[in-house]
């Protein structure tokens, strides 16, 4: 029983991170129908931005931890969303309306470019961050397996839930969210109502990159180390989560993320750490065979 609880906690923590990244994949797919393979690397850049801002703040003498963390979060989001916006503006927008594979190939190129860019500027070695938030609650006592709920895990889950509340409000209730959904359903009609479609697509990348930046920030604090390659695997897992939940579905992305996190945690716990990635991808294959639209995806019948 105790190990089960521990794997559950670990899985939900990890799954929150995947879910935040997955939303960026699913939103971009929803609005322009492409898989933005560079999104995982935008997340990696988010993690690096967090480290850089943290170190700079240290030099400037901002040492009160709560203030430093809030500033790191805000600045990492601003910097990273600029990258997200620029990727769309420079690499994808010029290709809009060209053949379907063109943006996909460009996205893969962009992914490699961003990895190399960070490797060149920051070096190939991983970057450590001094542990900022340590400690945990012991949920059980007495037996030889003590279930720990880390303060950092609480921070990750609470932040994710808060972000989801804000994000859901943004998409369902605000003019920006409405324009976003309108462009997703019918771009021609949206522009006939005065919606600037290009701007809306740009903002979609900004929102996706912002969520990825928060994920990158939290991962950096959680593991205390980043390197230029972390975007690859996290990106593939988050993409898997988006497909599992139903690509294009926002609740699906979060659900898929949590599921992938849980699968990974339980598989590593009960079977083998080495094969945890295989487990997640096997589940994906099964879902695609039996439910190609994903768990919460809708079959494409309404498109006229």
């Amino acid at each position, binding site marked *: 029983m105790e190990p089960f609880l521990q794997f559950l906690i670990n899985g939900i923590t990890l799954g929150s991170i995947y879910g935040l990244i997955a939303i960026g994949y699913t939103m971009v797919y929803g609005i322009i129908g492409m898989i933005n393979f560079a999104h995982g690397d935008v997340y990696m850049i988010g993690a690096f931005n967090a480290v850089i801002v943290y170190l700079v703040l240290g030099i400037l003498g901002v040492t009160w931890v709560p203030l430093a963390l809030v500033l790191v979060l805000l600045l990492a989001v601003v910097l990273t969303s600029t990258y997200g916006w620029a990727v769309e503006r420079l690499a994808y927008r010029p290709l809009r309306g060209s053949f379907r594979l063109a943006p996909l190939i460009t996205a893969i190129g962009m992914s490699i470019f961003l990895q190399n860019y960070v490797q060149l500027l920051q070096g190939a070695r991983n970057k450590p961050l001094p542990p900022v938030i340590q400690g945990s609650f012991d949920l059980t006592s007495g037996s030889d397996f003590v279930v720990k709920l880390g303060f950092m895990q609480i921070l990750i889950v609470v932040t994710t839930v808060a972000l989801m509340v804000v994000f859901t409000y943004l998409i369902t209730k605000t003019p920006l969210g409405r324009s976003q959904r309108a462009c997703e359903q019918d771009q021609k009609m949206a522009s006939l*109502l*005065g919606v600037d479609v290009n701007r809306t697509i740009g903002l979609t990348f900004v929102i996706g990159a912002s969520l990825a930046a928060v994920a990158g920030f939290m991962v950096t604090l959680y593991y205390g180390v980043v390197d230029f390659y972390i975007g690859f695997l996290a990106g593939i897992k988050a993409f898997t989560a988006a497909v599992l939940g139903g690509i294009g579905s926002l609740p699906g992305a979060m659900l898929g993320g949590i599921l992938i996190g849980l699968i990974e945690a339980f598989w590593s716990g009960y079977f083998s750490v080495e094969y945890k990635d295989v487990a997640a991808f096997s589940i994906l294959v099964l879902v695609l065979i039996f439910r190609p639209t994903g768990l919460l995806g809708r079959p494409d019948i309404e498109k006229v």
Partner: protein
Amino acid sequence: MNKVLTIENVQTFYGHIQALHGVSLDVDEGEIATLIGANGAGKSTLLMTICGDPQARSGRIVYKGEEITGKPTYEIMRMGIAQSPEGRRIFPRMTVLENLQIGATILGPDRFEEDLAKVYELFPILKERERQRGGTLSGGEQQMLAIGRALMSRPRLLLLDEPSLGIAPLIVKRIFEAIRRINEEEKMTIFLVEQNAHHALRLAHRGYVMVNGRIQLTGSGRDLLANPEVRAAYLEGGR
């Protein structure tokens, strides 16, 4: 009379295929002008060309004294033009209310409630369907929603593309009555595209007949209704 819209010698292409072969017409302030013509004549292409999607390859389109040829669609619509397009294009996964809200995108929330009340007064069924998804409405209800959505931006020029297409005669009557009211009460200029020539010409102050991407005939609605050519082609033994 002040001209709201002037179209001069406009040519529009889809790839290599030419759809409009030098169309010229104008629409006066406060009038209902109609454009009739057979299926494939180029009517929808003309309405979309006014809105900049597709762009005219040559010629000029002037709205209220300002040339709009070459401007992006969203900028043209922000100048006070609205369209209820062919096929209605209701956002299927948004509610009726959300469809109307997105119609008011360019105005912001200030006068939203007032405009919403007007649209509901014009089409009471929309109020009953307020929380229903657009995709679940009947054809007639979708058409009313498309017109209502266009009205939410307080346009000075309203473009309507075949609002009677595929809709029961009783509902068509109601929709045309609403169009007349919008024109009279709001003093809104309306450019109405129709295959249903009978209804359209009776309502309109002025009519144009389009054949194969060219304007063939022009006259007052009454004159065109009486014109033997028009009667033979569009009224008797056809649409």
